[in-house]
């Protein structure tokens, strides 16, 4: 960094800020990292994410225009704790048409703060759906296999695998170790100890004693799910952002297809 900045440098910086940082959004202090992040952005990738978003089946139902009124933020749960607001999401989506770099800061960490409760959609006077837009951006981020997305999905891999292969997400065996649920306290530890016997005694036939799925699922049902995942591109999405899971699920899907063909 030189000791002084030239007039030209200053002008450039001012121009870049006027385009990229908080200036467009009220010029709040502490948004410097937004500028820095935006500078890190690869314009091509961001443009491709933007295109992805615009071609999403639901985009035109979810996005109209935003008058910056703040109704959505006022009911947003995440906004109570973090400087995340659905208003900003719609604003950035709006402006990203001309400046796709703006999405960099969105896909990096911002969107992952959303609780997906859809209160913003319920109250928006312009009938935007910020929560839905976040879901669309998440999808695009996953598809593009961004590093930050891979990192975010890392602790998820077991759940992703379980869901993709069995069609059920939370299973009793996940609760057998107290280590992952220490914050649920001693009661949880006690439950974990007796998990098997309590589950065996659940008075519903499709649940009793099932430990590795949420309920008894037919083999054929799971095969059908794997075929859906293969055909709809879910496995490709998994492979770009959670490679290990994607590979295993792809193998499982191949087996499922083979089983189906031999059956026919």
């Amino acid at each position, binding site marked *: 960094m030189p000791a002084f900045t030239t007039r030209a440098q200053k002008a450039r910086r001012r121009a870049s800020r006027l385009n990229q940082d908080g200036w467009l959004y009220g010029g709040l202090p502490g948004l410097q990292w937004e500028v820095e992040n935006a500078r890190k952005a690869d314009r091509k990738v961001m443009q491709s994410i933007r295109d992805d978003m615009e071609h999403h089946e639901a985009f035109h139902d979810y996005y109209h225009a935003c008058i910056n009124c703040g109704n959505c933020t006022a009911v947003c749960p995440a906004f109570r704790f973090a400087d995340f607001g659905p208003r900003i999401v719609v604003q950035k989506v709006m402006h990203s048409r001309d400046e796709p770099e703006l999405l960099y800061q969105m896909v990096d960490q911002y969107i992952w703060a959303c609780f997906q409760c859809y209160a913003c959609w319920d109250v928006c006077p312009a009938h935007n759906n910020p929560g839905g837009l976040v879901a669309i951006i998440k999808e695009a981020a996953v598809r593009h296999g961004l590093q930050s997305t891979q990192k975010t999905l890392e602790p998820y891999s077991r759940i992703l695998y379980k869901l993709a292969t069995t069609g059920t997400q939370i299973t009793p065996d996940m609760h057998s170790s107290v280590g992952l649920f220490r*914050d649920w306290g001693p009661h949880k530890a006690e439950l974990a100890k007796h998990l098997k016997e309590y589950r065996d005694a659940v008075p519903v036939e499709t649940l009793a004693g099932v430990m590795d799925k949420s309920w008894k699922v037919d083999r054929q049902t799971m095969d059908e799910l794997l075929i859906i995942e293969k055909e709809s591109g879910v496995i490709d999405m998994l492979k770009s952002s959670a490679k290990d899971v994607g590979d295993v699920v792809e193998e499982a899907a191949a087996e499922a297809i083979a089983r189906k063909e031999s059956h026919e």
Partner: protein
Amino acid sequence: MADRDPKPEEKGRFIVERQYIDDRRINEPKKLDAGGIDISGRWGILIEPRTITAFDHTLMHEVQSTPGGEFIHRCIQCGNCTAACPTAEEHPMFNPRYFIHVVRMGYQGELEKVRKYVYLCASCGRCSEVCPREVDPSGVMTAIGTAVRKAS
């Protein structure tokens, strides 16, 4: 209450959206026990909400009674001052428009966050030149500095 972790920037580092949460609001216990289960560190984190629960004008009155700050209440938050401010250009945490509003409405939480940047004002007076409502932001910034020092 559990002990607070002394190193703010290291708290809650597992949280993906960590940089959007104030350090001060994260309560990460160094040592905490829930009925025999160790929930120290990450497992016991509580984050306090940042909701503004009151509008408080004490600080604004203080500023109003300090020379230079008399016209703080006139501000319509147009942002001309910040746009003209050479310090704001250099330092992103410095923003006269924002300071004026935070002091005017008495947002304690926000003020905590930016308190130490108040003194970055170089008193060049460009803001007062461009202000359409004759707030004299330059004078107001000086008065805010005085008032904040007095309050702490």
